[in-house]
């Protein structure tokens, strides 16, 4: 019986629009405000998103050429979220927590592309010394709490970082302790217990954390509308008395504005925010995913909202930059991406005598 109802809901969702409820939500979304940026900030946003996009494209190439292994989850299409949120925060001061789809969060947080690419190649120069791999990028220097491969397990870790921020201010008397933590995760994660447990604790203790949901509609092959009773994730915040907001996750200026509001709340001690970013991944779940379930028309709908092209239109039409400026950035990024591949290719493998190093704190 229950299954029949769920299936009926799905048919209705698909039947009422060309590409399903997710696209309809985006189309109907009224953006509260968009960030005002100057030329330098606009270029920085474009640079960060371009680095994310081209780094991932290079990963696909290297994977298919047999240079990297395992499960590799690319971020193409979602760049406005990483750039919009992390760009509104303070690098090496605020904390960032990611999932298995973590390359671009690491790059936005400031982990050098050389360190990320060589980690994917399993090299000693990787940010996790070749021990972590694609799904386990870490950098204490850049306040990247890590990539967590199991659904939902990174959220409490992020909550712990937010707890430390408050603890330092109130229990240790460090008046300037105002770091905010951003926890990134997807729509599929919003059906697991740890998500709800942590929303509760974060609001209960007014912790400085932003729960950033990258709702890309698909949990591998599970359509969001088939997995959850109320697809509007941001509304779950209200059950906890928490601020919640939905935002066009293909629009970096809208994401940035929403993130600025959430950061301001958190720094002021007003507690957490649940920020749902409506977005889409342009590739399959991972490079091993045959991607057979997503309709071509759905992909087209979202491809037309490519966040890089959208930002270009915004910046050029506002007269802040020229197309040539952006082509020049792309050229620089291509060189940077090539450089990180060359670096990773020639980097040393971990020393086999250090196989058991890093188990204990002392070594």
């Amino acid at each position: 019986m229950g299954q029949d109802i769920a299936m009926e809901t799905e048919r209705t969702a698909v039947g009422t629009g060309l590409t399903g409820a997710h696209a309809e939500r985006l189309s109907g979304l009224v953006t509260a405000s968009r960030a005002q940026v100057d030329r330098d900030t606009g270029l920085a946003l474009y640079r960060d998103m371009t680095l994310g996009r081209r780094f991932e494209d290079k990963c696909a190439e290297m994977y298919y050429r047999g240079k990297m292994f395992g499960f590799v989850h690319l971020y193409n299409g979602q760049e406005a979220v990483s750039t919009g949120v992390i760009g509104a925060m303070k690098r090496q001061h605020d904390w960032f927590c990611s999932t298995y789809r973590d390359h671009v969060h690491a790059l936005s947080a400031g982990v050098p592309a050389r360190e990320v690419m060589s980690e994917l190649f399993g090299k000693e120069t990787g940010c996790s010394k070749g021990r972590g791999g694609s799904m386990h990028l870490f950098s204490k220097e850049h306040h990247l709490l890590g990539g967590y491969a199991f659904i939902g397990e990174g959220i409490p870790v992020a909550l712990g970082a937010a707890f430390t921020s408050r603890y330092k201010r109130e229990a240790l008397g460090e008046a300037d302790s105002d770091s905010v933590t951003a926890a990134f995760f997807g729509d599929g994660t919003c059906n697991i217990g740890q998500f709800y447990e942590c929303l509760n604790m974060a609001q209960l203790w007014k912790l400085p954390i932003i729960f950033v949901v990258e709702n890309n509609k698909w949990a591998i092959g599970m359509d969001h509308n088939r997995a959850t009773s109320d697809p509007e994730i941001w509304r779950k915040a209200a059950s906890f008395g928490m601020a919640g907001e939905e935002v066009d996750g293909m629009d970096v200026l809208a994401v940035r504005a929403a993130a600025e509001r959430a950061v301001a709340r958190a720094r002021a001690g007003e507690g957490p925010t649940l920020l749902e970013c409506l977005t889409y991944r342009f590739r399959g779940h991972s490079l091993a995913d045959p991607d057979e379930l997503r309709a071509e028309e759905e992909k087209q709908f979202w491809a037309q909202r490519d966040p890089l092209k959208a930002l270009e239109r915004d910046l050029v039409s506002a007269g802040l930059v020229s197309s040539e400026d952006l082509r020049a950035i792309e050229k620089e990024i291509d060189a940077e991406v090539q450089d990180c591949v060359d670096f990773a290719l020639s980097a040393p493998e971990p020393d086999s005598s250090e196989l058991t190093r890093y188990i204990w704190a002392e070594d």
Partner: protein
Amino acid sequence: MAGTLLFNALREAIDEEMALDPHVCVMGEDVGHYGGSYKVTKDLCEKYGELRVLDTPIAENSFTGMAVGAAMTGLRPIVEGMNMGFLLLAFNQISNNMGMLRYTSGGNYTIPTVVRGPGGVGRQLGAEHSQRLEAYFHAVPGIKIVACSTPTNAKGLMKAAIRDNNPVLFFEHVLLYNLTEELPEGDYICALDQADLVKEGTDVTILTYSRMRHHCLKAVEQLEADGISVELIDLISLKPFDMETIARSIRKTHKVIVVEECMKTGGIGAELIALITEQCFDELDARPVRLSSQDIPTPYNGNLENLTIIQPHQIVEAAQTIVREGL
């Protein structure tokens, strides 16, 4: 006789360490206002405040993960499992993140945490509250596992665990909280990785831990009266084992019995005897003996519960057999 109850010895250890280092904090269910289910954190919330002794909602996997994140960013959390069995609900955080994260991060982060609480078979608490998780967690890399057994070692081990920069799973036993003992004066710690040579002897080595130490002591009294000299070792560290102390004893007695409260299959004794066989094979004059709990959920009925775990008379019989008959 003046003395300190075991739960108060643990409380003293936590109190002293919290006074020494403001980064040390406690989190878990009912650790604050209530003072802990076995009163190990009694009054600490009043003394140190609600942030340092944090009452959490009932959400084991999440508050354990929160401790991991807090530890990664500079704090030294002590997590209380109200009953150690509940930590099955936190298995993912303890395994994936406490245990493995330092390694997978290539040394980026340390996770100085203590996870402590009451375990073991109590008095008719039913199967879910009578767990011995030490065996379940034994294969997780990157965590130390200790079991206290007296007020003196409870305090010294707890202080060492809090000061250690690695995750430590700290097992207490529900039936030992009311043991009383005079504690050593002043600030002392017990090494996390050293077994306790409880009693020297020459005929047979008995290796045990936690509450079974006291069952073994009862058995030893009878065995000594019977003319059998037992060397009794409390393992203390369940991971890693103090193989130096263990091997030294086996080189002396050439016979070994492991007495444990965990289940036989995949238990602490299984790993221990495998190691003894690998490292001390030529020293053994008899087959190693394992005395373990039955491989069953702990039954509620008192008689059946007693039959599930090892009793002192079984230790006596096993020792007599191995010494007299060499079997």
